[in-house]
């Protein structure tokens, strides 16, 4: 027994290293997508405080550009709007609607932290559960797709960015409706990969890629990007490099999408 204690004492530096390193590595490996979401929700409030302070300064640098985009979008929306929903600064309220069957419902939010240089990039938004945001809702901006919400606290939300190795979403070629999967290969924050398009389909640079609407997160036809380059890799499918419409370095305002029929859709799938 004394020998054992002696041994532990003599090698305590190495043993402690082993224990701590094992804890850290298993943490890194075990926390996959969903567990991460819970962990994010737990720690988000502390981090969000700092990020919001920083963001309140950096927002000034993007003001001109953001205003221009907002006014453009406003005009576009006014042209499109056929039925008026009551709105104030924060929310758009949907009226109880039995005729038009409104399916999606958008909440505007501000980005208070964002990265593009990591392999697993996340954004933080300044709205949370109290403003009606839940985990697993789609996030878009005026230019295109942004990500999917993961962790939600009362007033903050973390978003799994398109620029994250864990991100996957169903997408299609706008011109002929062939669908595949969008994912990121970690190389460049301006491009993503569209895979699973069969090789007999005609794909040419410049073709537009949009969301397919097969996942319950995004409506059909949200713009993603344009085809930059396509080649067939060992066998039957294209690997298509898509240039994103969304400029992830200048994200300031985004819209979170609530799918009002999501539960109904999922229930049917389970049956």
């Amino acid at each position: 027994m004394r020998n054992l204690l002696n041994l532990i004492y003599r090698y305590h530096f190495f043993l402690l290293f082993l224990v701590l390193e094992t804890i850290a590595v298993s943490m890194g490996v075990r926390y996959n997508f969903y567990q991460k979401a819970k962990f994010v929700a737990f720690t988000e409030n502390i981090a969000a405080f700092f990020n919001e302070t920083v963001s309140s300064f950096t927002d000034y640098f993007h003001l001109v550009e953001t205003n221009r985009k907002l006014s453009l979008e406003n005009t576009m929306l006014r042209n499109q709007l056929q039925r008026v929903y009551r709105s104030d600064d924060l929310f758009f309220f949907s009226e109880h609607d039995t005729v038009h069957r409104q399916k999606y419902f958008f909440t505007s939010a501000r980005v208070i932290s964002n990265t593009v240089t990591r392999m697993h990039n996340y954004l933080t938004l300044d709205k949370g559960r109290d403003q009606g945001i839940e985990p697993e809702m789609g996030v878009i901006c005026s230019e295109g797709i942004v990500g999917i919400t993961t962790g939600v606290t009362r007033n903050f939300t973390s978003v799994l960015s398109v620029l994250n190795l864990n991100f996957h979403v169903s997408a299609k070629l706008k011109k002929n409706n062939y669908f595949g999967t969008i994912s990121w290969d970690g190389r460049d924050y301006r491009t993503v990969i569209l895979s699973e398009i069969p090789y007999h389909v005609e794909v040419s640079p410049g073709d537009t890629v949009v969301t397919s609407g097969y996942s319950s997160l995004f409506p059909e036809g949200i713009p993603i990007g344009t085809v930059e380059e396509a080649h067939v890799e060992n066998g039957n499918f294209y690997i298509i490099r898509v240039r994103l419409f969304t400029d992830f370095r200048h994200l300031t305002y985004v819209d979170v999408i609530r799918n009002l029929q999501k539960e109904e859709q999922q229930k049917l799938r389970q049956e």
Partner: protein
Amino acid sequence: MINTILRYTFIFVVLVLTQVVLLDNIEISRYTVPFLYVLFILVLPFDTPGWLLLLLAFLTGFTIDLFEHTYGLHTAATVLMAWLRPGVLQLIAPRDGYTPNTRPGISDYGLGWFLEYTIPLILVHHLFLFYFEVFTFHHFFSTLLRVLGSTSFTLVLVLLGQLFVLKNRRE
């Protein structure tokens, strides 16, 4: 003793804040992502006991992990670096060992020694961090380039930090 604890608490807070408030928001390119917070482990006194060194490394890494949503990545890399520190210090020790009351820095041991001390440790930290982050050797060279670029950037920041300390001491 109390003084030392206060001093290093201050350094810890400053480095962590610099990392999460400033450096994490400066995104020059994906090949230069600096992690200045490792400086905290590098500047700890020579006679820091091993167990304390490891625990402090765990704490530092975990704090950064909280802010970056990376859970264990920075913790693992920093603990590994802290474990290697005594070995590296021993390898490059001056002939008559380290004098008491000196600190690991340029002011006491010169630039050459400081580079020999910091480059291997920062490199190990970044190597582990970046490969653990992508979790594959698929884009081996692209990741290696990220490691080398980021290591150089971190090193420049560490040296700038040393200038700051040198100046303080002269005054």
